[in-house]
């Protein structure tokens, strides 16, 4: 390996129409160091990574110095040649190809047999095995990629980065889709790479990960560098302070309300696979948590209840004028809002404006009586009101949603449902991929609305969050209701108890069958 001086970034600025995404940010990365890049959604982390990866061009006056030479990263190809490799949040793999083809996908031409048009598969496999071995990962290189786990696909992605001769590795939220076990494995690999002298950037919303993995952190806020410190010299409070400037406190949930009116009663809800025979009551103004491990059928419960998946059996009753009456999915949907899990797939209209997104949940309200002409001014006014309430960061309400950061998009979705003002709001992972500050804001908003009589049903994988938020939690395992815990008795053990029992039961059954 040739001698390498550190990577230097000098006065990096980036201007988008109307927004200064980065403003004179400078820092240095050293060899054999994991540098954490932290900041809330929209602080400029992704912009910074995209500049390094060659996807965006910084403003004039910005300078990137690698190996003592000032370089211009015009496109991803140049980035690759400079040894910069990007490991993205969403694992990107060619599902229909084999592992070795995936790893070497960026440059097949290099692998032709003696300049003939044929690929030298033997040499390719040899090369890929070498890189996988560096990662301590021994997947068969002929395995079709679609049969790999998410974690293994991530390994393939990292191997690809190494095969491109990457010396500077950018990890953007690498653990977002990994299991605990896979995360530990990834950490080992990153540690391993660190000792081998790679320059590693690490972006994550999970502060624990930052403290575990990084040697040094650089904090960004509103496009400016707000702090830089070796990790050993700071603590969590200090870090959050650098990221958001102030600490958004979450209000403590007041005493669980008395059990007054039941607003929704679900009985024996059964879907095609999940859920199985689930019954529960929801009270007015209550925040009900639905907790279970991944794949336990939480989202399926929502989808079945609201009529997006087929309901095989079950009755739903809804409180109308003080009486519980049976109701069909379609009428029920008039009274509810549904914040779904996958933001990009089924959350927002990416190519429409903020205002259009917000008003889409209740358009008829803005139409005149009779022939129904939309009142655009009123639409925009209302949208502005909600944007202010939930603190959406944007130029104005006419901005296209795809230009917003993830957290802000989530806030737009929440505004949309607030505008409809439903009796019940179903939320599937409301704060996933949202930063600390926005998380607290969303939580406060839920509290505030529930005070006003709106009921919430919330799914969250984060135990701490759901225990903070909810009045009552029902626990689901394998599509069945296995437990119910009230706020006073919240604890990890209490929630897990039902799940453990369910698993034992299944095992026993299997033993009996066996």
């Amino acid at each position: 390996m040739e001698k390498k001086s550190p990577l230097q970034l000098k006065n990096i600025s980036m201007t988008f129409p109307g927004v200064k995404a980065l403003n004179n940010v400078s820092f240095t990365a050293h060899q054999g160091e994991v540098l954490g890049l932290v900041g809330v959604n929209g602080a400029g982390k992704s912009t910074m990574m995209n500049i390094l990866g060659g996807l965006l061009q910084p403003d004039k006056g910005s300078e990137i110095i690698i190996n003592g030479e000032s370089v211009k990263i015009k496109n991803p190809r140049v980035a690759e040649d400079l040894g910069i490799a990007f490991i993205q949040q969403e694992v990107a793999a060619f599902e229909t190809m084999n592992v070795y083809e995936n790893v070497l996908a960026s440059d097949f031409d290099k692998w032709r047999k003696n300049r003939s048009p044929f690929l030298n598969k033997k040499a390719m496999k040899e090369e890929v095995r070498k890189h996988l071995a560096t990662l301590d990962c021994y997947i068969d290189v002929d395995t079709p990629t679609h049969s790999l786990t998410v974690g293994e696909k991530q390994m393939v992605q990292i191997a690809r980065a190494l095969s491109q001769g990457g010396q500077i590795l950018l990890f953007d939220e690498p653990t977002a889709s990994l299991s605990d076990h896979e995360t530990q494995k990834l950490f080992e690999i990153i540690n391993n790479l660190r000792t081998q002298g790679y320059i590693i950037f690490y972006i994550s919303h999970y502060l624990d990960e930052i403290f575990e993995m990084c040697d040094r952190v650089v904090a960004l806020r509103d496009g400016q560098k707000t702090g830089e410190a070796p990790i050993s010299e700071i603590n969590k409070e200090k870090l959050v302070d650098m990221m958001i400037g102030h600490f958004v406190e979450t209000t403590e949930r007041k005493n669980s309300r008395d059990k007054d009116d039941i607003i929704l009663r679900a009985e024996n809800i059964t879907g095609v696979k999940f859920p199985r025979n689930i019954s529960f009551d929801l009270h007015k103004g209550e925040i009900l948590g639905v907790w279970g491990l991944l794949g336990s059928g939480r989202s399926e419960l929502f989808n079945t209840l609201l009529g997006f998946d087929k309901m095989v059996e079950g009755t739903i009753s809804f409180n109308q004028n003080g009486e519980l009456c049976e109701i069909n999915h379609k009428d029920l949907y008039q009274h509810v809002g549904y914040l779904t899990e996958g933001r990009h797939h089924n959350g927002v209209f990416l190519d429409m404006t903020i205002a259009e997104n917000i008003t889409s949940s209740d358009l008829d309200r803005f139409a005149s009586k009779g022939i129904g002409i939309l009142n655009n001014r009123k639409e925009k006014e209302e949208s502005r009101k909600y944007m202010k309430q939930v603190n959406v960061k944007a130029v104005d309400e006419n901005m296209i949603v795809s230009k917003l950061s993830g957290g802000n998009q989530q806030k737009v979705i929440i505004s949309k449902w607030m505008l409809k003002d439903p009796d019940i709001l179903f939320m599937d992972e409301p704060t996933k991929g949202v930063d600390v500050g926005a998380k607290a804001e969303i939580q406060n908003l839920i509290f505030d609305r529930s005070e006003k009589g709106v009921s919430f049903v919330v799914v969250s994988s984060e135990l701490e969050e759901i225990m903070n938020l909810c009045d009552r939690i029902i626990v689901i395992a394998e599509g069945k209701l296995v437990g119910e815990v009230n706020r006073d008795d919240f604890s990890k053990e209490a929630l897990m108890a039902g799940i453990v029992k369910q698993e034992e039961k299944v095992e026993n059954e299997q033993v009996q069958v066996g």
Partner: protein
Amino acid sequence: MKTNKFKLDNIFQYSTYIVLALIFIVFTIGSDKFLTHKNVYTTMFNGGPLILITCAVTFSLLVGVIDLSVGAMGYASGCLAGILIKNYDAPIVLAFLAGIALATFIGWINSVFIVKLKMNAMLVSMGMMLIIRAIAKIITHDKTISLFSLSFLRQAKIKALGGFPILLLVVFFIVLVCNIVLKQTPFGRKLLAVGSNETVAKNVGINTDRIKSAALIICGAICGIAGCFWVITLGSVVVTGLVSYEFLAIAAAVLGGTSLLGGRGSFYPGSFIGALILLFIASGMAIMGISPYAIPFVRGVIIFIAMYVDSLRHKAMMLA
């Protein structure tokens, strides 16, 4: 925060106007007969069917459906009206209404196949096109139906405006109504929403199937009107009537900035100006005595340019 307000976005917004203006400038220099009342009016009047069919196909494109049967639906409408007038002495208004009703009905059948039965839109509408053409051929025995009784409609003109054809007002009116429906009503917004992302639309409580069906039925109805207009402008029903108009109309709509994937587009300026661009290219080239075989070639080039501009616009929108 108001910096950069004047940017590429604005240029893109007016790109269709710019192209149309360029065409006018080029042909006005090329021939002194181009920019005359007579030529401009005749081109628009004879192009009425294309303008209307472009509006029709825009409805289907907005919800992400590429309807290839638009030309044939217009043809069916005009053909029925012509037969009723010629063979059964039906009152003209009634005959036209029957034609429009037929096209609307065909639009409904399309919607059943495409929306209810979830069949592939492009192939369903292509099949529909073939079937309509075949039936019409059998019924008319491949013969031209001449309709002299309609010439008074063709000749109705406003003298004060240098001979402005009165029926052209109908075309303008329909474009205007379509535009208001799209921009100012919940229905229009829902069209965009369904085209933009059907899952999200369903999720916010929009009855996506109903909106899509409505779009296809309206598409049929407007094609029906276009068909009547075509019969009037031509004064006869010929078998080759409105052939390959589906492609011209889709091209015009896309020229006007309507997305083939749905969720983005407009009637004015979009589809209207898009159609005018194609019409005036043909008219200008004819006046200058350029070979008629060159017209599709030039139209093709213009479409390539428009698509390139569109891809730039899309990139600017999604990335910036």
